[in-house]
């Protein structure tokens, strides 16, 4: 391995109104900083919304991971509109259904359950990243 393979873009939703949006954001940091730092990088959704050329180049034509807080799926739609060839969707509202005991609260400062939900979401995203990486589909 040369170690020069491009990292897989990860785009979390920027939800500022609900805890699930905050969990999506935290999950992206867990994934990119703790779990798969060598394989992933964050791309800001606001840049894609604006149509920033550099950000679009980072995602266009490849595979990417969207982590969304709610059913509106802004991150997934932002990636699709920016030319990503394949968008792998992780939905925090689905993850929380699989972890029914968790009661996430807070936006700027998630409570302990919110942080656990973020970790569970990141774990699911990491599996997708490994599959994409194994297939080499993100290049």
């Amino acid at each position, binding site marked *: 391995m040369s170690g020069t393979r491009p990292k897989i873009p990860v785009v979390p939703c920027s939800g500022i*109104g609900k805890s699930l949006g905050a969990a999506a954001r935290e999950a992206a940091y867990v994934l990119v900083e703790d779990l798969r730092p060598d394989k992933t990088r964050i791309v*800001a959704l*606001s840049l894609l*919304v*604006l149509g920033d050329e550099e950000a679009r180049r980072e995602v266009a034509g490849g595979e990417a991971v969207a982590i969304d807080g709610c059913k509106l799926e802004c991150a997934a739609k932002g990636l699709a509109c920016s030319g990503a060839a394949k968008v792998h969707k992780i939905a925090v509202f689905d993850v929380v259904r699989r972890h029914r005991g968790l009661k996430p609260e807070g936006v700027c400062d998630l409570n302990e359950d919110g942080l656990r939900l973020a970790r569970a979401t990141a774990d699911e995203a990491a599996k997708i990243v490994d599959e994409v990486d194994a297939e080499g589909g993100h290049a």
Partner: protein
Amino acid sequence: MPNLPRKKVGLISCSGEELPEGTVTRRAVRKVLETLRPDDTVTLCLPLFLAGGEGERAFARYYPTISVDGCDKRCAALATEKYSSKPLASIVVTEIAKESGYGAIGTARRLDESGLRLADAVADKIAEETDRLLKRKPKDTTRRAGREGS
């Protein structure tokens, strides 16, 4: 048009996930919404402009808005203008940080003490602009509300 109370100001933060200044925008906007001007403000979700949030677009078209951006790319201001209407006030965190002499502020994931103070300063600026847009006498935000969580 969404059925919203009159005389509210919409706050649109960039929330940029790559930069600590993006995290500052989130924290500052939440402080204004929750503590400083809860009766006068609502938040608008920037990505919903692109994802088809007609309520967001309509609000920004008919109500005053303040964009809060982390850097000089000004995604929130420019995207709001692109999809709806030009914000009546525009705040850029890096400009406030430079004017006030802030240095390192932590990471996008975790702001340090300096970053939290910067978020407070940005929140005060948003509250000031909110009062101006609503033509209200400015309130003393610094004495009424200390830093969140402190």
